[in-house]
């Protein structure tokens, strides 16, 4: 074949080439070891020596053109191939269901949330025994045997001396005997009272907070609770103190938050008052400090006890405390989203 014939046949074939594999075959056919161009080049020996350079140059020129054309064609076909592939490879992407991650119990969610807040403020998280001595649960907290405050809490007894703790405050003296100020601790855990209805469970969770240091004031207690309230229920939440009584704090306060449901305007949740009682708190009674060998002239402190279920009920709108302990999986799963 002449150069021109080769070129014509190449042009025709390349125009009809539709796949990379075909292209590869053409490449072999024209540029391969036994391809057309190689054959052409072999025929150079039949030419007169003076014609040879021109012929060679022409053949090389053709080779160059062919190579370029192959490259271009390869690109073109690859693009085409990619377009085809992308057109053909399709799945139904519309389905939105996925396996649920398991959920933490709402008690844990609230505990974690509050613990994390407090940790950021330098609080250590500690836990204590649920079966407690009368001493730590009552006496060390300024509640001697005959104190009427014992009636505030219906206690489960194991023996005269041992009981199920009625309050996480039982950890106060345990901690203060062991560690000296500055102290910032919180103690989450189960507490027990002989009570059972829609708003009372014989088992519930509290988080005790205790700070003892120089210069701790009631304003610090309020500030801390405001910080927690804002984080749990939004920055607009206000904190209100009402006078109350706990033998181990003086002054003692009940703490109300503006109702998260109505924002303080009054609704059925807050019994139209705009406020919801969430916890008890106060300045650590100096008797309690002195009992643990802490100088009450030098140090002061505050303590608070948050009812975890109470907070969860308000935050998540849970109507009955018994739901927490029933553990219906449909209930539990709601807290995993």
């Amino acid at each position, binding site marked *: 074949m002449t150069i021109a014939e080769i070129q014509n046949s190449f042009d025709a074939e390349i125009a009809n080439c539709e796949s990379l594999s075909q292209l590869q075959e053409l490449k072999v056919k024209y540029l391969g070891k036994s391809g057309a161009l190689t054959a052409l080049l072999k025929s150079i020996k039949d030419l007169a020596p003076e014609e040879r350079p021109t012929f060679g140059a022409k053949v090389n020129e053709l080779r160059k053109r062919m190579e370029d054309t192959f490259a271009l064609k390869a690109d073109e076909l690859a693009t085409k191939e990619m377009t085809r592939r992308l057109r053909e490879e399709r799945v139904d992407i519309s389905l939105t269901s996925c*396996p649920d*991650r*398991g*959920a*933490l*119990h709402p*008690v844990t969610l609230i505990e974690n949330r509050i*613990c994390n807040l*407090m940790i950021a403020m330098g609080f*250590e*998280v*500690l*836990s204590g*025994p*649920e*079966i407690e001595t009368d001493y730590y649960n009552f006496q060390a907290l300024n509640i001697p045997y*005959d104190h*009427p*405050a014992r*009636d*505030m809490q219906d206690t*489960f*007894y*194991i*023996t005269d001396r*041992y009981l*199920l703790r009625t309050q996480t405050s039982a950890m106060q003296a345990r901690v203060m005997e062991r560690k000296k100020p500055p102290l*910032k601790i919180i103690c989450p855990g189960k507490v027990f009272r*002989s009570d059972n209805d829609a708003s009372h469970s014989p*088992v519930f*969770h509290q988080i005790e907070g205790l700070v003892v*240091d120089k*210069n*701790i*004031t*009631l*304003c*610090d207690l*309020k*500030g*801390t609770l405001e910080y927690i309230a804002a984080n749990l229920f939004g920055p607009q939440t206000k904190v*209100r103190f*009402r*006078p*109350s*009584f706990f*033998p181990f704090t*003086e*002054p003692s*306060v009940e703490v109300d938050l503006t109702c998260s449901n109505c924002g303080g305007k009054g609704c059925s949740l807050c019994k139209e008052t705009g406020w919801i009682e969430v916890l008890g708190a106060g*300045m650590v*009674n*100096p008797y309690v400090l002195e009992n643990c060998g802490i100088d009450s002239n030098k140090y*002061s402190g505050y303590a608070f006890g948050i009812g975890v279920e109470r907070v969860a009920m308000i935050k998540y709108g849970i109507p009955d405390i018994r739901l927490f*302990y*029933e553990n*219906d*999986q449909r209930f*539990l*799963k709601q807290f995993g989203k």
Partner: protein
Amino acid sequence: MKIPLSWIKDFVDVDVDVQTLCDKMVAIGLEIEDVAYLGENVTNVKVCQIKEISQHPNAERLLCCKVDIGGEIIPIVTNDHRVKVQDKVPVALHGAKLANGLHISKGKMRGEESWGMFCGAEELGINGDMYPNADTDGVLVLSDDAAVGADIRGEVGIDDYVLDISVTANRQDCNSVLGLAREVAAALGKTVREPNVEYTEGDAKTNDLVKVDVLAKDICKGYFMQGVTDVKVGKSPVWLTSRLAKVGLHGINNLVDITNYVLYEIGQPMHAFDYADISGKKIIVRRAFDGEKVVPLDGKEYTLNDNDLVIADSDRAVGLAGIMGGANSGIKAETNCVLFESASFARMNIRRTGHRLGLRSDSSARFEKGIETYTNNLGLSRALHLVEQLGCGKVTKGRISIGEIAQNRIIKFDKRRIAKLLGIRIPDEKILSILHLLNIETTIDGNEVTCSVPPYRDDIGRDCDIVEELIRVYGYDNIKGTLMEKSHITCGGKTEEEQIIDGIKNVLCGLRYNECVFYPFAGKALYEKASTEPIDEREYIKIVNPIGEELSLMNRSLAPNMLQCVSMNLSRNNKNLRLYEVGKVYIADKLPLESLPDEQKRLSVCATDIDFDEFRRDVLQTVRSVTDGKIKLTRSDNAALHPGISADIAVEGVKVGHFGKIHPQVAANFDIQTDCMYAEIYLDKLLKLVRKEIEYRSFPKFPSVSRDFAFLCDEDIAAQDVLDEFLNLPLVESAELFDVYRGERLGAGKKSLAITVVFRDKNKTLKDDEIEKQCAKVLRVIKEKYGVALREQ
């Protein structure tokens, strides 16, 4: 406690509406549980006077009246033939609402106009304690001085509020009208009018009537007694019984009513003895003899011991001190001489006796909270004043007083203490005025504050108590939040153990398990359901006063509550259960408890609609997240689990849990009809096997070689045993089971294990002959040990 507002107004002027009053009471620390307006259900009822009465023309049993309702004459038809012209009676007018739910409207009765209805006591919601003659049926005839046209509620005493106030345990003084009035006065900035305690003594000397001997001085701090002679037992006036009615008491007779009145007004429980029943002219306050019997007013016999305090005469106990008077010495119609007792009994003693005997009264409830001798004395004087006022006898001369009458206490402290506790400064003049309102007379000299605290405020003992008094009246709204700017910086955080447990929860949540929280106790029946072995109740820590037997034994396993929960969930059609709990078991060294028990943290994991292998992987993944120690599984003999489909987990030779399919018997007990897997992990043990610090290892430089084997073996050969033989070789990097085959070709009781073993030498490329050598050794060993041979192809 429930107190009518009108009674409080005896002692303090209230010039604000009831809502404002309640808000102010709440602000200073009195919780208002409820406010009830007594006239709530009686509206548009007026006092009228009957001007004319005539026979109804069409009905023999009816009368037609013309009545004056205050400047207007209206017709009323009645069926009460006892009414007379000039009688003042209540009339319910058009639109009236009555206490018994009736609504009244204008109309005609048998053709005659009647613009309303005369009312009886029941329709007004009152009784004879609240208004004279209100115990009789028919139309209530009002007193002559009733104002015609006036709202009936004012006339019959139901234009009044009853406040239900919850008093904190430290404020026993507020369990009385007087105490509450003192608080109201402080809240409103008013002065309290002290109760009238004046009376004239007669000639009879108290000392001649009776001698009092307090033998148990340790539990009776004060005992005061005075008598009344020439007693006329009778009915109390309505003003008095009406008040008792509003606090929920019935009038009994004047003397008993006086003791009840003083109990509520002053807060002093009183007792009145019929002098005639006091043998030997002697009152002895003593501990009971062991086994001594007493019959108090409730008529039941109680057996006492020497921790109980009794009031006795020279022969016998006549009452349980502070709890209940004796049936043998009460006031009777014929009583003509009475001894009034006003005393202070140790609260612990009253509390214990009351609790032991199951006997509580209004009196004991107050004694349990503590009453001091100032109030003893005040209460007695008030009772004697009332005796004189009611004309029910002559007060005897002189008072028997045993024990000191409490006086004001002085508290001195540094004024800077106030700001130190509160974080705000209260101006001196404010300090003085607030404390003055509370009857705490105070002087400030430089930084020294001196307070004189009245004896009835025995809750105030030191500086911080005064600070509380100040801030509750000054107002807690003055406290502005700060964030401990002046305290030390401390390092916070969770313990390592808690962090690991958080991690475990995270892993389980990732494996789609949901966290549960259970009571850490259950009943014997539930423990029995969760086991195939009998339960020995004596091993359990037991609550002596549980809500019910089913909530009385502290956990020794987490399984019972978890399985009960699974059963409940299945009964509600919840499927694919994935549940876990981080809880505790409570193990006593010795029972009854002599020291705190060991509270061991445990993890229970439970799943339904799952096979053993999948559950095993979930459990192992959880354990693996904590420890990198060597795990070994062996058959478990746990009584809650299926013996063939359960395992004990050991890490580094320490048993850290068990898991498997629940025993079919246990499943049946809980009505669990689907496959249910349960695991219990002993976290306290596992947490001691925590992974050490992580150390980076470089990737192997030389290639690994993997070989597959198929072994034929008996069904009960444990695959892990075979794998372990490979894993024991120094050059084996991993050995895993990738298939188990059973089939007729293999023969009954046989299975084929397909295993992939990866070999690697970290120092060089392995050669085939080295691997062959090692393999040959292992194959020989497992053949000898387990009878496991390579499968013939």
